[in-house]
């Protein structure tokens, strides 16, 4: 599924084995698409010597710190931006 800048997305909550470039701390959390970076080889395939085809769209997603860490002590405007591949994103529930 494709997303546009400004869309709310949720990171899949999943713990697959292997080389995964989705940090645990954002899994299951919702954020906003900050930009669409283009299409890239799948690192989960590249890590095992495969070709990484087909290409995946890479997004940058902006999360409010408060949504990542409910006890975050800084201002509520503070954010983290994370690069996430399309198969880790789903529409918000």
């Amino acid at each position: 599924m494709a997303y546009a800048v400004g869309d709310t997305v949720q990171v899949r909550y999943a713990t697959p084995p292997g080389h995964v470039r989705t940090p645990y701390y954002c899994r299951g959390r919702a954020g906003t698409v900050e930009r669409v970076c283009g299409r890239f080889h799948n690192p989960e395939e590249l890590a095992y010597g495969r070709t990484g085809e087909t290409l995946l769209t890479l997004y940058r997603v902006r999360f409010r710190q408060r949504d990542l860490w409910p006890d975050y002590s800084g201002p509520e405007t503070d954010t983290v931006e994370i690069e996430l591949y399309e198969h880790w994103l789903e529409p918000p529930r």
Partner: protein
Amino acid sequence: MSHDHSHPHDHHHDHGHDHPHRHPNQPDLEDLPPTYYQAMADAVAELLIEKNVFSGGELRETIEYMQGRNPDLGAKLTVRAWTDPDFKKRLTTNAKEAAAEIGIDTGPAPLLVMENTPDVHNVIVCTLCSCYPVFLLGKSPDWYKSREYRSRMVREPRAVLAEFGTEIDPSREVRVHDSTADMRYMILPMRPDGTDGMTEEELAALVTRDSLIGVIEVAGPAAG
């Protein structure tokens, strides 16, 4: 060591003794058995060379190139952006093309330049490993690769910044960029006050590695 005494012996040994002896070696890395990953890296390098993927000379050349990098190119981009607003716009929207304009090749990975403003302070981390734009900033500092920096910068960035001596006003957003995948990042620091009359060289001297990572702001010229 046993001395080779076949050469013309016209100098004096002032040792009070004449038996062959060796001085203890300086302690060195090689005194310890190689770690698992050192052995692995050596084995992989030997195999790649043996299979003609690259030569030993090319490996050495690449290491020399990587270790020879420093933050000069990052500083050059920063100063150009400070002194040319149109360039700044291009740098923050298409960094690769903007850098190429002044002869800087940003390498194979896409580069994103994040601009600090009175409203937002940006900082880079790679929580999963240690992604870092070596070609622009030089070799990354050890703390950047430490588990502590990588875990705390996304969890309590203001506390970590304060440990670097950087207090960000609560009215400014702290925006942390986790370099998890294919993008590489450079922070474009704010130009400090009191630098209006400075030359590009003087400005470049103010821009340091840590300000391009975003853990500090660029300090103005020292007062007095």
